[in-house]
């Protein structure tokens, strides 16, 4: 759901850019001096994986496609602060090199896809992973949180469009949510499958010390 230039009003672009910049600053501050060589490499490789996976649009409905976002998945593996930084970088590269998402809309895209999807999805993940024991809780939380984060981003995107006087919020919400529920289910399944493979290779992944989580 990369927003192109032209959809959003100048005010919405400015406000979301300020919020996104402040959040990036906060995340940089929070993570400074917190990662070792291996987690730096893991972060960069997950970023590469997210970029590649975002290219792979799959059909979800007649004439509609969706793709994996990976922001919640990154938050589960790296913690929300690093995930927000990483997804912001991916969005910046997509915009500058490939014209995917608008220049003026970059702050808004970081807000929806980087910040809102990550925080809302990670919150749901954390709730479930803390409630249900061990790796089973992590897997259930991963599926649910990943799906929820996509819906969170779709709601935020609808809100920004309505604030830009595209259409009233109630008109936008239903179609935006109903199409992104399907994309969210796919997001959940991809996250779940990838995480299950990681836990198969490295069952103690979440027990090994690796910064905040």
């Amino acid at each position, binding site marked *: 759901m990369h927003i192109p230039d032209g959809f959003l009003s100048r005010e919405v672009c400015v406000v979301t850019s300020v919020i996104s910049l402040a959040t990036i600053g906060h995340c940089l501050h929070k993570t400074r001096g917190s990662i070792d060589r291996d987690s730096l490499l893991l972060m960069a490789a997950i970023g590469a994986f997210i970029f590649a996976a975002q290219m792979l649009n799959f059909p979800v409905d007649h004439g*509609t496609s969706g793709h994996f976002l990976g922001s919640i998945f990154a938050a589960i593996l790296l913690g929300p602060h690093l995930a927000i930084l990483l997804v912001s970088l991916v969005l910046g*590269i997509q915009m500058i090199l490939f014209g995917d998402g608008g220049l003026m809309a970059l702050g808004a895209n970081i807000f929806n896809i980087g910040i809102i999807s990550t925080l809302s999805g990670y919150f749901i993940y954390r709730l479930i992973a803390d409630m249900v024991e061990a790796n089973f809780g992590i897997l259930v939380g991963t599926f649910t949180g990943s799906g929820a984060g996509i819906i969170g981003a779709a709601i935020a995107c609808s809100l920004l469009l309505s604030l830009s006087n595209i259409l009233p919020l109630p008109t936008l919400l239903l179609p935006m949510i109903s199409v992104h529920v399907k994309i969210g289910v796919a997001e959940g399944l991809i996250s779940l499958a990838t995480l299950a493979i990681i836990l198969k290779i490295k069952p103690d992944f979440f027990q090994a010390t690796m910064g905040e989580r």
Partner: protein
Amino acid sequence: MKIWQIFLFLALILALFFSPFAATSPDGLETVAIDYGFMKKGEVVLFTSPFPDYLITAITNKTLSTALCGVIGTGATFILALIFGLPLRLKKH
């Protein structure tokens, strides 16, 4: 093999061999924009990126063009994340 090596390897495989065959139909937001008639508003061009729509204009073969863009973007993300991530590293004792 370490987890990060698996991710990087997987990313390159996906970018090189799978990205040319991705669905080209509009995404969720574009579908809503088309259905509700505000897609035209998104045709503003503020700048031209070097590889618009994940294509290299000099290469006429679309499959090759997209695959190369996939590798360029995947590599750029990995390298830039490493560079920007360096200041986040633990200080050595």
